[in-house]
């Protein structure tokens, strides 16, 4: 345990564990693994996948998207999608992928000063922790959405006894996740109030800038775009979620801007 005594060694160990200290070029045939987009993927996963893809596009990194029905189980951190396979490295989830790219010398936030880096960090935490939980809440805890959308989609890739089994397991896992964070006992109204607060914070921070940090897109833009775009475009039972987001004009504008710049083929 001697190597744990100092904080820097903890950080090094963490880097080693997540394999993001590898030096060198961005591997040629990097693959993103994610669930099937049309039949299977759910709102929270879709947001994360879109964020990662946007980030890689913004950084100008090459990648191939591959859809697998068991992407969630293939992931090096079970249940976390998407993950990338870059050479022999496997990295899952948005933030580790960002740090992985950073270790290869591709970063969108190098030009920022200290205060801006702090802003980047806290707003990313806001989206990752609060907006994601709201998405999970709507997907798994809202009874009607679960029955009408989540269950049919999630279980679509499994044969008979497994469709109930896997969905039940996943739901239990997600609900206990919400429970320990104190989200489970919230009402839908409270959740939307929370979403509204986030959007307000983000909208205030964005103001009428082109991107969050003026002219150049950063990781935060990728993350926010991933989440908001999925929320707006994913058909849910009612469009309250989307409407909450759409109420903030500059955020929608940001989404449109990123969409046209990086995904020309698709229409918002």
């Amino acid at each position, binding site marked *: 345990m001697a190597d744990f005594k100092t904080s820097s060694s*903890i950080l090094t160990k963490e880097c080693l564990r997540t394999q993001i200290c590898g030096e060198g070029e961005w591997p040629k045939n990097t693959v993103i693994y994610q669930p099937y987009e049309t039949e299977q993927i759910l709102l929270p996963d879709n947001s994360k996948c879109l964020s990662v893809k946007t980030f890689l596009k913004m950084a100008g990194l090459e990648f191939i998207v591959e859809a697998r029905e068991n992407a969630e189980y293939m992931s090096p951190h079970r249940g976390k999608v998407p993950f990338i396979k870059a050479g022999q490295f496997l990295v899952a989830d948005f933030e580790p992928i960002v740090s992985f790219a950073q270790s290869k010398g591709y970063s969108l936030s190098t030009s920022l000063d200290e205060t801006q*880096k702090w802003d980047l960090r*806290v707003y990313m*935490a806001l989206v990752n922790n609060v907006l994601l939980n709201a998405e999970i809440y709507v997907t798994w805890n809202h009874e009607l959405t679960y029955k009408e959308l989540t269950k049919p989609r999630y279980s679509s890739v499994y044969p008979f006894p497994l469709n109930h089994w896997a969905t039940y397991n996943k739901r239990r896992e997600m609900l206990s996740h919400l429970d*320990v964070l104190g989200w489970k006992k919230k009402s839908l109204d409270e959740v939307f109030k929370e979403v509204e607060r986030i959007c307000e914070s983000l909208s*205030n921070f964005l103001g009428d800038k082109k991107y969050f940090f003026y002219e150049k897109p950063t990781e935060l833009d990728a993350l926010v775009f991933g989440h908001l775009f999925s929320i707006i475009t994913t058909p849910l039972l009612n469009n309250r979620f989307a409407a909450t987001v759409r109420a903030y004009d500059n955020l929608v504008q940001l989404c449109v801007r990123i969409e046209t710049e990086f995904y020309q083929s698709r229409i918002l």
Partner: protein
Amino acid sequence: MFKPHQLEVDTWKGDWGLPSIDYKCLEVLAFARFTNAPINIYHSNNPYRSVTGHLPVVSYNKRLLMDRDSLMDCLEKQNLTPDFGLTSLQLAEEHAAISMIDAQLEPALLFAWWMDESNCLNFTKPWYRNALKFPFNWYYPNAYEREAKHKIYTLYNHLDSDNDIMTEVYAEAIKCMNVLESRLGNNFYFFGSHPTLLDAVAYSYLGPLLKAPLTDNRLQSHLKTCKNLCIWIDRITREYFKIDWQAHKCNEKKKLEETKQQMNVTPWYKRDETKNVLIGIVTVITMVVYSFKIGLISVSDTSDEEDED
């Protein structure tokens, strides 16, 4: 006559100069002090009457305030808010920063207190056992440990070993401390000269992390290198929790003297030699009794026979 309602707060008692050792209690107390809200504090140390099994129990006008948001609402209605004078941009930043602190420091605190075995056995549980009254002190510490473990395992269920969880949790916490440190800089408080909700939340996590005498203090040793944060914590304690601060100082002095005295005089029954001698005596007695029993030593009245001879 109109008498304004007061916040009634049941909390855990303080220690090591902090007004309370529990981060949730500390948050409420700091919040109330920063806003100058009228408050009645009971160091009840008894979560028995609490619905959730946790302290603090905050009530206002006989109404329970369960979480941070409802407390904020309640205070806002009385025009008491620590965020007075912040711009909307600053409010947004505060909102985001709090979400980051909640997500990254809470698991670290829970891990350091409850999941790290030596801390849990030597520090956390004994502290709660001492603070609680008799039948409860066998139940609550274990319940809290279970809850903390459940929470950590649920949040980090993608990792397999405790060691992996520890590195991830601690690494996140350290990164979080580093950015807080650089954000704070030489400011008095995060947003200038007045403490805000962000200060209250950050203080509630960092205070116990800095002050608690943990046996395994990896986070603490890192936090101690963050000079700005240390000064800031002491500043809040000194300015807003004067009584606890002074009581702690007094205590420390007293303890120092006591230890000095103890260094000089050790009572005879506590010395090692006495113990060794006692053990020796008991052993000898046992051996002798045993040898009598199995007949190794027998006492016969030889003197009588000699007389007859």
